[in-house]
């Protein structure tokens, strides 16, 4: 059995960078491990960094959505970040929706969304337009943006 996916605590955030092939067993243990970590308290947000994930089937997508919803019930926001454009396109074409899940393009944006003003790598006014701090676009909208980008 593969070892569990590490959960890193940083500035009150739980950071999970998934770099392994996600078996169902791993997904299940991640879900319960995260629940337990959140229960320990003092968690301001969860970041799931997915740039190392190259398959997202309905089960995985649903499980990650469940994780975000469970965290939300416990008062903690979850951000998915680094989704591969190919996966985003696949999810949209499948008709898979990640309702209520916040997504950002890169890890910095995810941290910024969950810890506004804390990191300050880029001053607020240098950011493109007046993007909302916490990106409220659904993942499918983000995926559609990716589709448009690819067509350029």
């Amino acid at each position, binding site marked *: 059995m593969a070892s569990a996916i590490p959960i890193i605590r940083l500035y009150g955030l739980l950071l999970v960078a998934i770099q392994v092939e996600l078996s*169902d067993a791993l997904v299940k243990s991640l879900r319960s491990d995260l629940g337990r970590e959140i229960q320990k308290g003092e968690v301001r947000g969860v970041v799931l960094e997915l740039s190392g994930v*190259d398959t997202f*089937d*309905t089960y995985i997508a649903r499980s990650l959505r469940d994780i975000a919803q469970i965290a939300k019930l416990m008062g903690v926001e979850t951000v998915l970040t680094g989704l591969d454009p190919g996966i985003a396109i696949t999810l949209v074409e499948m*008709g898979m929706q990640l309702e209520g899940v916040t997504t950002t393009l890169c890890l910095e944006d995810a941290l910024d969304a969950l810890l506004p003003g804390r990191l300050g790598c880029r001053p607020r006014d240098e950011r493109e337009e007046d993007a909302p701090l916490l990106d409220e676009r659904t993942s499918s909208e983000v995926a559609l943006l990716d589709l448009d980008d690819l067509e350029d």
Partner: protein
Amino acid sequence: MGYVSSITADSILKAALRRAGVAAGDLDERGIDEAVVREIGRGLSLFLSSEADLRESLAKLSALVTPRVGASGRAPITIDILTETSIVDARLQARASARGLGFDRTDQARITTVVSELARNIFSYAGTGRIVLSELGAPRAGLGIVATDAGPGIPNLSQILVGNYRSRTGMGLGILACKRLMDAFEITSAAGKGTTVRLAKFLP
């Protein structure tokens, strides 16, 4: 169209298999390869009077061979779905095949996702089964995916295919996703006998 009686056909086939060195029991596993076709052709030429009939029969036989052997002649890959970890195996094999055939990253994601759905359905609903990945040559290059099981079958298939189904276990999205993400899709299922899904994704 020339006429060959079933008794004659049977003996032609037996003789061809013997000459090609293929045991009849292996035919399902190996499929009809070039050597078998050549030998069947030799047998047929003894019985078919017209050259045109012979050519037509040989063309039909060759068509049976082409889907199994692609441009590069890579052998089909069979993944037995036995446990939950087979789902990951199937996915890894699918990605390797898709990459090897030159599919771009988006198509690789489509292909691995579909294979993952099929493997999961086999594991969840039929228990065991297998997935065969094969390179498609003529008429269009690409990847062929066949998922078979001898499970309970899908009684409400038509309902699922029109999207009127929301399952208790999942979202009722897997089979529809297969259809949406691939270029060719065919599913047959019989109650108590099992389910076969055939798919193809073509290279652009």
